[in-house]
């Protein structure tokens, strides 16, 4: 197979023990593939399970069945059965995730938040910061803010820091959860540009985008999540 992501019949159900053990089926029979350089956009109404699927691909949500094959370091690894250390390895060198919300350690400077994934992959600190700075500049985060922790920033600024952090590494797979949600037109354009650049580098992407215009700009293919809806 050449696909970077190959999902077959993945399913997920939440059991809410706090609500008397209510079973909450989320998705079932999730099956699709993503090729290198392709951007697949998940579509469907709110609550259809788009974010859950993204989290399953990242190994953040555990699957109850099926298979999530990821091409990792030249071999295919099934995230549904992988050991925790293997999942961590996949996240470090194969899959990146850009969420809507930034979750960073208090007190760490913005520039270091962005540079961290590179440093974790063995880049020298100075080199990593240089690249982080370039990306922050491109995303219109003023240089005077770089030394501050992003927790004090506005929602839009935080999201741009998050995008910089997500896009800085050269990972072959990127998962994008509403990367443009609270951005203005200019910054949305920058993100679209960044996504185009990743595509040309052969990065496989799965994205959730609500904005029709953006979706149109980045999607190579649309997967309708409603077909995976699990009957309650």
């Amino acid at each position, binding site marked *: 197979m050449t696909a970077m992501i190959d999902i077959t019949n993945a399913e997920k159900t*939440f*059991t*809410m*023990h*706090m609500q008397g*053990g209510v079973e909450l089926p989320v998705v079932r029979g999730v099956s699709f593939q993503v090729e290198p350089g392709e951007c697949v956009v998940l579509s469907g109404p709110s609550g259809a399970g788009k974010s859950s699927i993204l*989290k399953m691909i*990242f*190994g*953040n*949500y*555990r699957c109850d069945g099926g298979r999530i094959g990821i091409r990792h370091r030249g071999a295919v690894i099934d995230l549904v059965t992988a050991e*925790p*250390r293997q*999942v*961590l*390895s996949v*996240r*470090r060198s194969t899959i990146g*995730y850009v*969420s809507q919300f930034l*979750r*960073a*350690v*208090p*007190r*760490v400077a913005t520039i270091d938040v962005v540079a*961290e994934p590179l*440093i*974790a*992959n063995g880049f020298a600190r100075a080199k990593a910061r240089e690249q982080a700075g370039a990306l922050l500049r491109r995303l219109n985060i003023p240089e005077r803010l770089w030394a501050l922790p992003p927790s004090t920033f506005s929602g839009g600024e935080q999201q741009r820091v998050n995008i910089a952090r997500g896009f800085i590494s050269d990972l072959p797979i990127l998962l994008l959860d509403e990367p443009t949600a609270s951005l203005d037109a200019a910054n949305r354009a920058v993100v679209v540009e960044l996504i185009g650049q990743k595509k040309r580098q052969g990065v496989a992407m799965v994205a959730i985008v609500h904005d029709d215009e953006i979706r149109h700009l980045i999607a190579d293919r649309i997967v309708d999540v409603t077909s995976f809806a699990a009957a309650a």
Partner: protein
Amino acid sequence: MSEPGTLVQDDQPLLVADHLGKNYGRLTACRDVSFALYPGEVLAIVGESGSGKSTLLQLLSAQLAPTGGCVSYRMRDGVLRDLASLGEAERRFLFRTDWGYVHQDPAQGLRMAVSAGANVGERLMAVGWNHYGRIRDTASSWLERVEIDTARVDDAPRTYSGGMRQRLQIARNLVTEPRLVFMDEPTGGLDVSVQARLLDLMRNLVSELGLAAIVVTHDLAVARLLSHRVMVMKGGRVIETGLTDQVLDDPREPYTQLLVSSILPV
């Protein structure tokens, strides 16, 4: 999604717990715990008071003899050895060199009446360092790494604030470049702002030094920031285990769901 720092890849486990258990008479403090910890990996043990997590930490660090099962550790020569088979001298040597132990109360892990320099230097002197100037210089550079003003190197920790004491305790433990550090509620009893600084420091040190760590905490935020993996304990058993963000974002067991849902929103 924020991830704890680099995980050094190594296929050989550093520490292996095999069906570990401890009874006090009829009372079971801990039962049937098995896991493997790899070099550079940070494992958080979470649970409420009385869940057996502190007992487990003592079993893992050979301070308590198990009533069942065993703990093995990969020594620096690469041989995996049952801790119970080590002589007391070997065990204590391990404790002073290849391991660190960070107590919740720094007064337990420090000598409060002797200078910070001597506190950090003690492990060096224990392994035969015999040059005052070099010991003091090394101690000073460690104070710097844990963000303590080196001008305070000759002051006793009883003149230090709580956060400084905890950072000093960490320096004292790391000076011999251990491969494994045990931490028992390392941020307990500290102000929130001080906690944040300490967590940030520990996170960086752990990833820079490629340390493996076992952190006991009841604070899920500490687990999220520091650990790669989590074990949830209840009634002396491990009831759920997995990647930290998996367990915290997608908890499966009723008790884990209760723990996660009990975090007060800020």
